[in-house]
């Protein structure tokens, strides 16, 4: 089975988005993260595993504890990609500007 593992899959789930928001502020242990959710620890662990596989979070061991922290660069990928989408519309609209002004000129000449 081909499982999709990228930033877009990471943010497709509401719990995962909440986890991202949470650890954006500070690195946290799985237990500390789980306390913020009504779901089981196993469910939170599964989301953390997916987020790790999507390379959106990384684990860091401090003493005996594992901390999860956000990969800021990966989040930027989403913004860069949305920027491209914005660019398409911008280009499109500039072309429409040109077309509208051409049509207006033609009308005035008649």
């Amino acid at each position: 089975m081909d499982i999709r593992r990228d930033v877009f899959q990471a943010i497709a789930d509401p719990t995962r988005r909440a986890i991202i928001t949470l650890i954006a502020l500070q690195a946290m242990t799985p237990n500390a993260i789980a306390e913020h959710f009504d779901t089981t620890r196993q469910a939170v662990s599964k989301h953390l595993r997916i987020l790790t596989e999507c390379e959106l979070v990384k684990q860091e061991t401090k003493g005996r504890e594992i901390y999860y922290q956000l990969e800021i660069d990966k989040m930027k990928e989403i913004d860069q990609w949305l920027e491209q989408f914005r660019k398409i519309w911008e280009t499109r609209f500039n072309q429409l500007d040109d077309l509208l002004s051409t049509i207006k000129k033609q009308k005035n000449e008649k």
Partner: protein
Amino acid sequence: MKNNLLFDFIVDKRAKTVTVNREFAAELPLVWDAYTKQELLDQWWAPKPWESRTKFMDFRVGGRRFYAMVSPEGDERWLIQKYTSITPKTNFKLFNAFADKDENPELPGSVLDLNFSEQDGTTKVNISIYNESLERLEKMIETGFTEGTKLQLDNLEALLARLSKS
């Protein structure tokens, strides 16, 4: 002049919605035609050097537009749109999806809601784009429309050329 025209691009990832606002220096009936008439739409819809080629367009509620985005190499990427609501010169809504060459849509698609209004000869177009999946939005970019980036590079090249002269 062009630079004074409004252009907003607002992304709401949670609502999977992108809102685009843009003003045009033209009267509403002309802008409306540019969005709803095949021969005009094909002249601006595809970011150059891509081309928009409409095979058929039936602009009425329940009608469809079947068109291709054609790459400079001549590769065609088909899309189908279905008009779900039309209020002349005010609003129209459509469902948009990639398709195969036999007009079969590839789901999921996106829903576009376009609003038109005019003030003092300037027409404002408000477009809200709802995507069922972020993956689909991603695919739209992958499907060759990397021209935005290329354009940026072209502009940068021109700028560098200008700077080196001065």
